[in-house]
């Protein structure tokens, strides 16, 4: 294997990793805050991509793409905020809340997917890219859109991390995640903060969706694959720290790229799930976590 190929495969792995990081962090934030695994995350991603497609209306270019991405993130933020009150809150006092939320989020996924099918139809679509064309680096062609996706994903993660660490709202969100009762007794608006968490997570899913929709073709159920990968990422990396799913996302992205190149497309899921099983057996709290987070 030549250095050129190595670089090319590595670069595509990094880009995949960036998008997985964006999605998996959204999942991890909801998981650590509400103790709920959001199976509708993939459907939200797909919906985000379709909203962006609708807004950009067939025309590309940076301005349109920016507008489309922003509208999509905003719409999905609102949907996520509302979905807390529809999917999670009615059951929060139930003992089997985790199982119930699995069912409600799966139901939401099915509803959203079929709504997309009804509204936009089954034909493959693609969000027009912000920047067309590619450039040559170390003998391999890289698309500008790929680089934009990676940079935006990392920037969004930095913004989220800063938000959670520095702002009062972000800190309150962490407080609610760590001790709900104490937060309530402090007078924090727990429902609002929970809804905000889901909203932010779905907005990030939308952003990932817009980029995946611009790099590949999209259809109503194309969120299922990224959801599966983010599940692997979250299990692989653990959720104890903000950075652990991000690091794991790049591991998964690179593993996927290299296994696709060497073993073929059909074997890469097997490799990823093999890794996941190995981690679950050897280090169940995740590769990059020193301990399990108590919820």
């Amino acid at each position, binding site marked *: 294997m030549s250095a050129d190929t190595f670089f090319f495969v590595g670069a595509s792995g990094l880009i995949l990793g960036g998008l997985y990081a964006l999605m998996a962090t959204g999942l991890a934030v909801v998981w650590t805050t509400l103790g709920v695994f959001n199976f509708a995350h993939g459907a939200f991603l797909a919906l985000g991509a379709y909203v962006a497609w609708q807004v950009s209306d067939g025309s590309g270019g940076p301005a349109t793409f920016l507008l489309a991405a922003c509208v999509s993130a905003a719409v999905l933020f609102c949907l996520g905020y509302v979905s807390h009150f529809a999917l999670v809150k*009615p*059951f929060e*006092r*139930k003992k089997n809340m985790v199982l119930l939320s699995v069912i409600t989020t799966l139901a939401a996924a099915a509803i959203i997917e079929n709504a997309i099918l009804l509204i936009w139809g089954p034909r493959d679509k693609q969000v027009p890219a912000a920047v067309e064309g590619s450039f040559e680096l170390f003998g391999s062609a890289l698309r500008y859109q790929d680089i934009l996706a990676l940079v935006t994903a990392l920037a969004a993660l930095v913004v989220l991390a800063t938000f959670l660490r520095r702002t*009062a709202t972000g*800190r*309150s969100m*962490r*407080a609610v995640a*760590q*001790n709900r*009762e*104490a*937060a*309530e*007794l*402090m*007078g*924090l*608006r727990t429902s609002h903060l929970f809804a905000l968490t889901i909203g932010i997570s779905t907005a990030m899913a939308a952003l990932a969706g817009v980029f995946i929709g611009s790099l590949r073709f999209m259809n109503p159920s194309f969120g299922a694959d990224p959801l599966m990968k983010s599940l692997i990422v979250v299990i692989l990396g653990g959720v104890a720290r903000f950075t652990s799913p991000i690091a794991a996302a790049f591991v998964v992205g690179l593993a996927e790229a290299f296994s696709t190149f060497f073993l073929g497309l059909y074997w890469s899921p097997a490799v990823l799930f093999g890794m996941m099983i190995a981690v679950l057996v050897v280090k169940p709290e995740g590769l990059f976590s020193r301990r399990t987070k108590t919820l």
Partner: protein
Amino acid sequence: MTAPLLELRNLAGGYPPVAVFRNVNLTVAVTESVGLFGPNGQGKTTLLKTVAGTLDPWEGDVRVDGERLNAEGRMRSRTSRHLNYDLFRKRRIRARDVVRSGVIYVMQGNLLFPEMTVKEVIEIAPAASVGRSGIAAMRDMVDELFPRLGERWHSRIRYLSGGERQMVSIAVGLLALPRLLILDEPTLGLSPKLRVELSAAIAGIRTMGMALLIVDQNIEFLTGLIDRLYLFDHGTVDREIGSGRMPSRQEIMAMMFEARH
């Protein structure tokens, strides 16, 4: 006569279907410091959690300044295998209303937010209830009451000792500018030295004119800090000891146990 700051009328509650306390009548006047003493496992903490709004009262009222904070009437306990009654059932009391009315409950053995630093916790505390005004003044007050916390400003709560955690909890409560501060077992697991330090801090809070409701197992600690004492036994307040003279430990033990056994 003005209404007392906090008044509990025939309050009953528990964890359905287990009733934990009943017929609790208790008042705390403005700037008064009141103690609640009773054996373990009799429902003191459950009572306080109900007052703070994290548990629903079954019966009776929680009143602050004469205004009822809970929903009227008794709680109906209905369950069904077919319907999710939680969808229709509203909370009978809301923690946020209690906090807004100026009653702050400091939990027992509170871990607070383990992954956040003291600084972060202290900074969000006032924002939660009173907005951004006067934070600097409150910070100075915390520094004055708990000089220890200044040294641990950037440590995560997880790494603090039990006593330091207790101090952060009380400081967080104070930063909400309460009119009544409820302390649940503040000396739990504390060394005698820390207990003296904490006692001084609570005495300091008392001189600021804040009403206090203190629950503790340590009667010497308690009697030094209060005007009035309620004895809590078998799920209800069964005796009130007035402001005249605080009884000694032996007298209280005799009152609590010899009458019955």
